[in-house]
């Protein structure tokens, strides 16, 4: 029987914060692990694109994507402070305890994409959920054909996961394209919105047998969808993750519904084709 059937689905397990790394303004990466190694081992079976519920007792609980790939050793969150819970997490110091439950949601069906070209398009902190898939795809490099990454940030100061960006820039078997909306004195790279990278000289976006992953703020999402459609992508070839106010993460509280979908259990990953059929605006 599914263990979820007998367990308390709302019960978070104790986690310990190991270290904190600054990413960009207001965004930090929190490396953590479960206090109970058995819990950690069970959790590590998550899929790219899934999320977890993070508890700061006395403040509350919030959903957070899982930016690590299950192929990596460490578990971590990358979180922007926007309100009470995220601020409470940012206030923690290494060694402090909090609690986590999950993983939840459908995640990206990475096995279904074997043999395909993968195009990742990330805007701003949209790179958080996509990081997991990118690392996963590179760890299973022989399973996929071309891998292209298009990442856009507001300014050079807003680029996150710098170490990964360096690896992808130099790495074999991955075409990496970076842009910023506004350059500064030090910037020598491309300037413009992320979709403008598709028209950069030398760039050739594969379409035929391709899956395009798109994550970013709503405006970026709308424009990139148009750009991809213009390149010939069908709506079923475009996948993304949706974000909703979530309380339970397990399909019971009703907060995350969009049309016919409970984002927490039916999503957060949807194809653009599915998104249009939800019956409610995103």
């Amino acid at each position: 029987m599914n263990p979820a059937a007998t367990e308390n689905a709302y019960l978070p397990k104790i986690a310990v914060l190991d270290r904190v790394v600054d990413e960009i303004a207001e965004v930090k990466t929190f490396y953590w692990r479960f206090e109970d190694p058995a819990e950690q081992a069970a959790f590590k079976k998550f899929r790219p694109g899934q999320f977890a519920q993070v508890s700061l007792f006395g403040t509350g609980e919030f959903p957070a994507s899982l930016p690590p790939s299950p192929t990596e050793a460490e578990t971590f969150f990358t979180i922007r402070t926007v309100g009470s819970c995220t601020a409470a997490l940012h206030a923690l110091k290494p060694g402090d305890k909090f609690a986590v439950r999950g993983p939840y949601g459908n995640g990206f069906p990475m096995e279904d994409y074997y043999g395909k070209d993968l195009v990742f398009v990330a805007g701003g902190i949209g790179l958080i959920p996509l990081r997991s898939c990118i690392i996963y795809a590179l760890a299973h490099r022989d399973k996929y054909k071309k891998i292209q990454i298009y990442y856009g940030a507001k300014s050079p100061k807003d680029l996150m996961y710098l170490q990964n960006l360096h690896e992808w820039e130099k790495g074999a078997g991955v075409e990496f394209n970076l842009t910023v909306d506004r350059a500064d004195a030090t910037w020598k790279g491309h300037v413009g919105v992320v979709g403008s990278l598709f028209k950069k000289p030398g760039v050739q976006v594969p379409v035929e047998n391709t899956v395009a992953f798109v994550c970013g703020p709503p405006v970026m999402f709308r424009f990139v969808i148009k750009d991809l459609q213009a390149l010939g992508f069908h709506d079923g070839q475009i996948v993304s993750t949706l974000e909703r106010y979530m309380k339970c993460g397990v399909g019971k509280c009703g907060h995350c519904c969009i049309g016919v979908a409970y984002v927490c259990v039916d999503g957060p990953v949807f194809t653009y084709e599915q998104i249009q059929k939800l019956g409610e605006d995103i």
Partner: protein
Amino acid sequence: MRACILHRDDVLKIVDLLRQQGYEVVAPFFGRGRDTRFDNVTDENRGQIQIHLPNPYHPPKRFVMLQIERLFNIQQNNGQIQIEPTYREPKRAIFGIRSCDIAGIWHLDRFFLGREFRDIYYEKRRKNLFLVNVVCTDPERDIGEECFCVCADTGPAARDHFDLQLMDLGDGEFMVVAGTPAGEAMFTDPIFRKGTDAHIAKRRAVLDVARKSFKPSTTSWFSAAVRYVSQGKVAEKTWEEIGNRCLECGGCSYVCPACTCFTVSDRRVGPDEVERVRMWDACALGGFTRMAGGHNPRKAVHDRRNRRFFRKLSHYFIQRELSMACVGCGRCAAVCHGDIGMPSVVEMIRRAAAETEKT
């Protein structure tokens, strides 16, 4: 399933038997004014339990889905955290629950116990719950202005999901049907007598009369409304009209026997102690979908009203739970100040459809 006959004077002995078996029994009473309510049965009030009375506004849902429920007690000491789940699972019986509310609990069962995750708090309480259904047969006292269980196909006599079902046959006799082994086990008591074919014929006749006692209300258009909502054929303008009349009080959700939404919140109860509680929530309320940063995907009130009726009436969700989130009790119609309870909404959808068909 088995049936027995019970004398009118022995009906409340079911309550006594349940109490002897250790059940906390709740039953319907008249309130101080014209209201009615479910309350705990005590030695003092036992004689005032009502068999025929208007169904209380506040549905018995709150005995399985608590209005405010503590999920965990959390102790935080010297950097250590201890989380203790807190379950409340009394052995409880609801006496006098109406067929619509039986359908409501069945919907909660489908929702909280179905699919990938089960709600263990609900499950523990539900396992200890005994349901004594009373069929609405008295047109004066049982059947309200807004009742439409006949259209929602949940009443007047529930077909299933009760432990015992009582039906007043008139002439001082009740027919008792057992819906579960636990219900049937009650029949060993000598108050239950064997029925005859005449009783069965009487039951049929009483039900026929009861069915005809409902207002031939606009909700007979209910199934057509289900089709219109499911197929997205209700015009945006109609939703706007409905939304304009919503006062965003959330009352419809609070009296609904089939609404399931809740929110979760932490509260400090001591210097080192926190409780995580959940409480009923309502999609009518503006903050329901508001996200961090202030973005609210369902800003306009009509989006949220659309949401409520889509969730309740669309085929998609009926199939998802194999039960409908509207049971025809009519409470939303009785509490809504804007007159957009389910029967009115069905009527507004009907009129809008009639107009478009004319043009």
